[in-house]
């Protein structure tokens, strides 16, 4: 197995492997085809090392759009591997302001860490 050198590649690789056990192989194959990336767990493919950064990102974003939990997974993995979370995933819908208010005293405002 070749070393996964690019962070976005690592994230995409984890998603494609774990995603198959959650959604089934077909769903992931489909997401890969739409993004134009090779299926990363396939032994025939060369671990997608040639996949472009842009197409891997498309795969990751499309994965996140499956449901809100998938989005949470993508955001978590992106933070862990230092990948900037794509802007289109950062749109927030309704949140419960009173829950956040009750926690605001524990953290300080760090706008540069908000990433958008």
């Amino acid at each position, binding site marked *: 197995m070749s070393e996964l050198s690019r962070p976005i590649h690592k994230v995409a690789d984890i998603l494609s492997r774990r995603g198959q056990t959650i959604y089934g192989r077909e769903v992931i194959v489909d997401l890969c085809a739409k993004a134009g990336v090779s299926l990363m767990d396939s032994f025939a493919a060369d671990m997608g090392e040639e996949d472009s950064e842009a197409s891997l990102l498309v795969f990751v974003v499309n994965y996140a759009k499956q449901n809100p*939990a998938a989005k949470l*997974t993508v*955001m978590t*993995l992106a933070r862990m591997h230092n990948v900037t979370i794509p802007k289109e995933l950062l749109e927030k819908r309704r*949140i419960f302001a009173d829950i956040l208010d009750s926690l605001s005293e524990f953290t300080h405002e760090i706008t540069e860490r908000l990433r958008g």
Partner: protein
Amino acid sequence: MERGGIPLFFMKLDPKAQDLDPMLVSGFFTAIQSFSKEVIEKDSSMFQVDYGARLFTVFSGDSTDFVVVSLGEWDSEVTSVLKSLHDEFESVWIKNLSMKKKDTIKINTEFPDFREGIVQNLSFRKLSGSWVPYTSGPEDVRFTSSSGIITPLIDGKRTINEIADESDAGTDEVLSEITRLWALGKIKFSSILSKEDIVASTSKIDRLLQLSSPQRVEFERKNPLVIKMLPRLSMLFDGRRTVGAIIESLSEEYEDSQIIDAIDTLVEFGAIVVLSPEKRRLLLVKEATELAVRVAEKIYSPEDAMQFLNAALNKVNVAEVTGVFRLAEQSWNIDYDTRLYEGLDPRRLMDLYAEWIKLLAQFVGALDKDKIIKFADALTNTYQSYLFRRYSGHDLRGFEEFSFWLEINCVRR
């Protein structure tokens, strides 16, 4: 350390790693070693145990074991460097040491030449320019002769950046000299906390709050302002607030620098500690659980959420987890006091982390699936607005397991 768990040599390469105690590490390691020896090949000279927050790498030599505790991914390039340092330690430094000598070794300062070798061979955590070095311990010849250029500048007031600016030597030279002095135990740093750090009080703070205690009298003589600030401050060291949040909440009464100085002084005294990587991850999962229940109260109803929570609590049989929930008729809360973890080793802490993740998973599993997508959506947004702003990528390690589990629950409705 010697076989059997007696530490012979201890050196920290990260000034911020305050909680790492050599006795704790060696005792803890002896425990894993006896277990590992059965699982791992007998002659393997190096093995690693990953506890999620920390990686323990163990080199077995002829008469000693060398344990390297690190954060993040292992850099394979350092393996050979560490091996040769270990060889040198065995063949040069402790070779002819008597038993009696070994028992009286000062593990934090002995073998200064070896320490210098380590500094030259390994790159340190980058010192931050805002840290303030100060001298500690008696000066000796080695200190003054080889570091004459910068020694006068180390006055406990200047930051590393200021020393580099004022010194004739180049920045790299200044940094390596400061690193060397620190490694030799000649200097320490203050102002090393950053705003993202979370601090918690220890039982030592009680002595400072008790009017009758001699420690308080002594402390007040040197730090009258800190004692004056203490009643306000002590409430804020709750193991949840960041240093930044503490500064903000007192900013109307005190200057930022006064608050930072007070926090520094209390860290030095041991009355407060910075949360270790394990404790940060425990805090994260506790807060994640609280948020999940609060969100469920809104999406379902408070009664339903309580029912789901009770179902989950019934499946987790660990007192350190279930015991922190205070459940009353109309309300509930989680006790965040970190003193619960005092004296627990990193392995136990990571066990507890796993139990918390289990509880969170059980809670999600108990939810009615008709509104699970709505719940996941609200939860993701809440985490994004709070957890992701507070915690680093490092803190989030392992949390993706919960997220995958939530995905499964969203799919298998």
